[in-house]
């Protein structure tokens, strides 16, 4: 039987739901995407110091890895790492590479690649396949060095054909951010869990996404047609006519479901007993508003960073930022709130224009507001741009990853300075409301102080769940422990809502939880009246809200709060959910 045409079913982990059918497109591994260009003699020193930096970072990586493995007790693996560390001191890698850069006068990546390729060729010429296996270490080390050399030039997806299924070992948030749903029908990767930033963007855009598939093992010519089922986490290569027909039908049914929801768009978001709920949209790019005209009640979260993470290699100037913010404001209008979250960078969201930080634990490192306060030159320009763009619009500023009152006070001081400066330049400047993201447990515990000092609060459930449960949201192996409706999280949300009510400061919820109709009645019952989620989910959430009375929702929340077992809470919610 011809293997090429045989149906093959691969099970991965579901990341973003939806069904896609298309031709596979493989994003080449890093090694094959290396740019090659000549350099001037005057650039040699810069190239060499860039190379040394890459070696240094590679060594840091390996030391950290060795440390982690030693803790796990994997001494066998740790000895490999010793070899790799030692290889970074290999004269071939150090002295000879630098000599080559000087002589060849080409960019480091291409010199490095040709050096390694030459080595591989020579190696293959003289040894049998038994020895060939030893190239693995060399390849691994060189891939690591190249990764550091090319850290800031992950490729754009512009080359991908329309309607393709994109296969890649790993995606950077900038990849998913740049993808258009009409161009890329689905993502299939080896790495990347259900709650990573890439996953969030894929879901926001409605692009199906399956992770945990051994992409390297697949051959680009293995399949002409691929089906991706993002709900089940299934990837099917070369489907039979029968399978194809089945999935086409399911795909079309899904589309019809959304069309039904769209019909409800003119209806109000209110409960059965006419309690009004404000539904706002999470937006990562002003263009999204053209795709989904649902943002009737404003923007609950504009992720200012995503726009700039789309492959831009220089820091966006004040003028450029003003243009972007203004275009968003223009689309939404002056009379609806627009919550602009200032750059949420660091962690797995790394800006191309900024030298990569080396942190042993980025999730607990310089991200969100910490990153901005450490790089005030970036923050300063953004604040100026935001105040300039705001004009008469209802713009509100949101600060990510606040964990301490001092951070809010520092930002307020900086804002005063910016306003003063703009006034000195002859601009009319209004006060803009300022709020804190509540996404770490410390912020929950001091939310009263944060609400008093600020103007509103916004609950970011993804990080709040991650930090409360101590579960890495991007780790597929941990996804079963990632319970958004964990008793601890529900109690926190309740506490935040109570504080907000008492101090009369609005509380919004803008995490993934807000986009899942399973949680909608529970969140209503916990006291939330403003939801913000990806525009495509808004009709679904509205439909759910319209099936509940506020009293029933309170009752549901009360019942859920009595439970200590997250499974029992999920069961209760499933039992109570009102579909169709």
């Amino acid at each position: 039987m011809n293997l090429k045409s045989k149906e093959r079913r691969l099970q991965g982990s579901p990341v973003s739901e939806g069904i896609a059918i298309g031709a596979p497109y493989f994003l080449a591994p890093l090694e094959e995407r290396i740019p090659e260009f000549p350099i001037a003699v005057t650039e040699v020193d810069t190239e060499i110091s860039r190379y040394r930096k890459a070696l240094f970072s590679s060594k840091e990586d390996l030391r950290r890895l060795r440390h982690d493995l030693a803790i796990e007790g994997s001494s066998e693996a740790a000895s490999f790492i010793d070899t790799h560390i030692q290889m970074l001191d290999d004269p071939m890698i150090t002295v000879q590479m630098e000599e080559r850069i000087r002589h060849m006068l080409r960019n480091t990546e291409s010199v490095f690649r040709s050096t390694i390729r030459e080595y591989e060729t020579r190696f293959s010429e003289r040894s049998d396949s038994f020895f060939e296996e030893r190239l693995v270490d060399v390849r691994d080390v060189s891939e690591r060095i190249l990764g550091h050399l090319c850290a800031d030039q992950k490729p754009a997806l512009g080359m991908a054909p329309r309607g393709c299924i994109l296969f890649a070992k790993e995606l950077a948030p900038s990849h998913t951010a740049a993808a258009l749903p009409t161009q890329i029908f689905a993502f299939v990767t080896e790495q990347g869990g259900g709650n990573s930033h890439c996953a969030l963007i894929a879901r926001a855009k409605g692009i199906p996404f399956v992770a945990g598939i051994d992409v390297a093992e697949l051959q680009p010519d293995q399949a002409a047609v691929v089906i991706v089922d993002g709900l089940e986490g299934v990837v099917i290569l070369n489907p039979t006519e029968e399978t194809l027909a089945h999935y086409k039908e399911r795909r079309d049914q899904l589309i019809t479901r959304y069309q039904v929801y769209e019909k409800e768009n003119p209806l109000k978001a209110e409960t059965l007993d006419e309690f009004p709920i404000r539904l706002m949209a999470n937006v990562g790019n002003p263009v999204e508003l053209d795709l989904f005209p649902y943002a009737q009640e404003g923007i609950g979260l504009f992720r200012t960073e995503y726009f700039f993470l789309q492959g831009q290699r220089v820091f966006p100037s004040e003028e450029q930022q003003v243009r972007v913010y203004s275009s968003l404001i223009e689309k939404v209008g002056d009379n609806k709130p627009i919550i602009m979250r200032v750059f949420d960078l660091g962690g797995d969201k790394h800006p191309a224009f900024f030298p990569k930080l080396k942190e042993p634990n980025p999730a607990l490192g310089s991200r969100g507001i910490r990153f901005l306060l450490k790089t005030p030159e970036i923050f300063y320009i953004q604040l100026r741009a935001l105040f300039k763009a705001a004009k008469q619009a209802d713009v509100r500023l949101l600060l990510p990853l606040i964990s301490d009152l001092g951070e809010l006070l520092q930002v307020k001081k900086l804002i005063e300075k910016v306003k003063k400066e703009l006034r000195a330049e002859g601009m009319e400047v209004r006060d803009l409301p300022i709020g804190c993201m509540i996404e770490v447990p410390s912020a929950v515990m001091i939310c009263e102080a944060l609400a008093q000092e600020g103007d509103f609060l916004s609950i970011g459930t993804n990080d709040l769940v991650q930090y409360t449960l101590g579960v890495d949201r991007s780790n597929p192996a941990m996804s079963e422990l990632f319970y958004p409706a964990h008793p601890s999280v529900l109690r926190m949300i309740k506490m935040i809502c109570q504080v907000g009510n008492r101090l009369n400061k609005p509380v919004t919820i803008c995490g993934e939880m807000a986009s899942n109709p399973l949680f909608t009645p529970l969140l209503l019952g916990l006291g939330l009246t403003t939801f913000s989620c990806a525009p495509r989910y808004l009709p679904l959430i509205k439909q759910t809200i319209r099936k509940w009375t506020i009293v029933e929702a309170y009752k549901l929340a009360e019942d859920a709060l009595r439970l200590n077992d997250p499974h029992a809470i999920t069961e209760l919610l499933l039992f109570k959910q009102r579909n169709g």
Partner: protein
Amino acid sequence: MKLSQKVKVKNILGLHARPATAIARLLQKTRSQVFFTYRGETVNARSIMSILMLAAGKNASIVITVDGEDATQTMQSLVEGFEQAFGEAAHES
């Protein structure tokens, strides 16, 4: 001083990554220039990648050349290392 001596590879898997790492590490403490010659090819023994390139299997005969002030000790520790298969299993094939 310049010394030269023939040694036999005892490691089952030949001079693969682990002994090559041990050699590079051992030589870090020395100052002499050290070369391995096998099948007419001479390489810098401080370079793991070059040692791997020799593709020297078990029982391969390697000529060690050491040139420098601490040649004697360097040669001695290398010969010992080969003798003990750099701490690896060296059973008969």
